[in-house]
């Protein structure tokens, strides 16, 4: 299972990668914004985990682009963000995010959400 973690915070990328490792997922690549994320997707990914607020290209614009490209449009996407107001979640789901993890999060929450998007 190949994961792509997209977040401008190196701390948050490390926390997510540590969490994935604890959950048994160790094939993880990373990118610091949506534009880098699109480049990394050329190598393939089975699940995308992305932040919302990032420079260069936000998580919302990144997912909007991912959903328009035939090679990537069906990849499950988890958004991990502090933007957790109802309107935020509605906007994220509308552009094609499959599930939402609100920071701060526990490994159990991450596990549940990953299993849910993989089961779709």
């Amino acid at each position: 299972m190949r994961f792509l973690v997209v977040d401008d915070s190196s701390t948050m990328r490390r926390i997510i990668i540590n969490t994935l490792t604890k959950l048994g997922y160790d094939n993880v690549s990373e990118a610091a914004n949506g534009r880098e994320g699109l480049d990394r997707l050329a190598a393939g990914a089975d699940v995308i985990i992305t932040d919302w607020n990032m420079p260069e290209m936000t998580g919302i614009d990144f997912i909007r682009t991912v959903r328009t490209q035939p090679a990537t449009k069906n990849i499950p996407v988890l958004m991990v963000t502090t933007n957790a107001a109802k309107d935020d979640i509605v906007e994220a789901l509308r552009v094609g995010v499959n599930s939402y993890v609100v920071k701060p999060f526990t490994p159990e929450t991450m596990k549940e959400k990953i299993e849910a998007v993989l089961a779709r």
Partner: protein
Amino acid sequence: MSTQTTIETQLVDELVSATRDVFKTMVFRDVIPAAPPLDGSALKPGSNVVGTVAFAGSTSGVVAFYSTLNTARELTALMLGIEPATVNGELPDAIGELTNMIAGSFRTRMADHSHEAWAISVPSVTIGSDFHTKYVSDDVQRVLCPFEIDDKEVFVELIVTRRR
């Protein structure tokens, strides 16, 4: 040093809850409120690391996090799962992310009450010595929340622009 009474209790309570939740889940430590929240103008925390995130909406202001450099290094190590001695360039990003999560969680909690999601800024982090933060407008209310984590002290401050 006076106990705060001016900023709405709900704002302070939600900030304290957000801080405790972020530390428990992302730093893997409990932070305990060390004293009742204080009028922010009454106390200047002795800190060399300050993280800030601004918010704007029906209520506008700043959430600030304060700690010493050593404590910030230990918090960074706990967040990243590494030894404090190996922390180097990671500290500013880690404290920025910690502040961002406290402010973001606070924003979400307040949106549940007001049904309005405030805009929030990207975090900024200042590291140094012999400095204090000053907000240009005097027309603000400040409340400082002291916390203990293990045997160390950290502070979270809420600065709110007065409503006109």
